[in-house]
């Protein structure tokens, strides 16, 4: 349970469902461009990133 060092750049604003989707699709959500207010990442953003052959994170 180490504190992660969060920075405005490092912190991703996205609903829990979008985070889960990212994990499911093997997408590193930090790499996704958010289209919502302030850059909030939506489900659609995650899917678009995955479809565009975006990175895969190391998952579990």
């Amino acid at each position, binding site marked *: *349970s180490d504190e992660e060092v969060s920075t405005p750049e490092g912190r991703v604003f996205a609903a829990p469902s979008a985070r889960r989707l990212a994990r499911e699709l093997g997408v590193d959500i930090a790499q996704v461009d958010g289209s919502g207010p302030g850059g909030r990442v939506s489900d659609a953003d995650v899917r678009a990133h995955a479809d565009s052959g975006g990175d895969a994170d190391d998952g579990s």
Partner: protein
Amino acid sequence: MVVGDIATGTDVVVIGAGPGGYVAAIRAAQLGKDVTLVEKNAYGGTCLNYGCIPSKAFVTASSLAHDAGNAEEMGIHADPAIDMAAMTSWKDGVVDQLTGGVEKLCKANGVNLMEGTATFADENKVRVGHDGEGQGSESIEFEHAVVSTGSRPVQVPNFEFDGEHILSSRDALALDAVPESLLVVGAGYIGMELSTVFAKLGTDVTVVEMLDSALPGYEDDVARVVRSRAEDLGVDFHFGEAASEWEEMGEGITVRTENADGEVSEFGAEKALVAVGRSPVTDTIDLDAAGVETNDKGFIETDDRARSNVEHIYAVGDVAGEPMLAHKASKEGQVAAEHIAGEPAALDYQAVPAAVFTDPEIGTVGLTEAEAEEQGFEPVVGQMPMRASGRALSMNESEGFVRVVADEPSGFVLGAQIVAPEASELVAELALAIEMGATLEDVAATIHVHPTLSEATMEAAENALGHAIHTLNR
């Protein structure tokens, strides 16, 4: 190996049936795993038996008695008499109902329940010892283990709990008479909740705290509201005092404390409650045998899947570090179970809300203004004082506030500090706001029922945006 040792196998062994362990066990079973949950004492753990639930039962009952006895202004004349033995047995009934429920839910979900004390034999085997009749032990071979053995109160040197003069929180929640006077050592959240409870029941409460304020860790203006209300209830605070020794004195005790300059003070009371923190139960389960490491505070360090350094052994709840809170334990238990079952779960929440059930309550979630600044945000803050809330006034309450912290450029809500009636409930909306990546505008634009305390959340968001209606804007 003890005579009579029987070896069985299970997919998942869970050690300890508190809110970390029983949730892990139920979820893993729901996901099709064969689960064995080992508990040596009582289903529900500290939380249901000696912590969250008993303390909240007393918070509610003592508040009702106190409020009714102090409502002449509202046209209510009452002089409630307290039957502490009855209050305690009512509380026991509530606990029994809930722990019985946990047991039933475990069974209904197909969890194998095993009573006994588990220790690791190696990294794929625990041994479960049984006390008393049918004494002996058995071994369980597991594929995955979840350690959820919780925590115990920190002992102050010379202040061994005896249940009579020197009480742990557990002892204090099982009294059958209201003490005339009580010395509370420690002004953390447990000490403050119980000081408030007993002050409301009529006990003369004195609090000694080594640090220089009540509720260390909370912002000054938050803690001040609670402390000043406790003082109104007659609680006497002494800061910068460390309890050093005690002795019996007549019917009660005398406790000596020392300040930083070595000056000694004496406090007389019927009993003392020592509540100076809790430490993880990781020293009695032979973690070494499984190769699981702990840090210098005894916590098991875990990754974002709740795994210890040994990949197939998970640790959840109080053993896995701060914040030592039941709902953090349950979330970790859930994630551990889902990960074991191969689901894409992770501890990726943005914030763990917390509450203190004092008067008024405190509810916090996410970042304070200072923390937001440290993390490189450009925080903007909005606040609504409860004295401007119609619902608060109609409850005859006026102390406290709702504060919302956001990142100014993006508007994202980052945190909230609430000190108000029902703060423990109000914080839920802000936790959702933070998880969703909601902005101040989102919170401000959501219609809130009138008249409610939750309107203050909307108003605080509007205040941060510079266009509150019921407060003057900053």
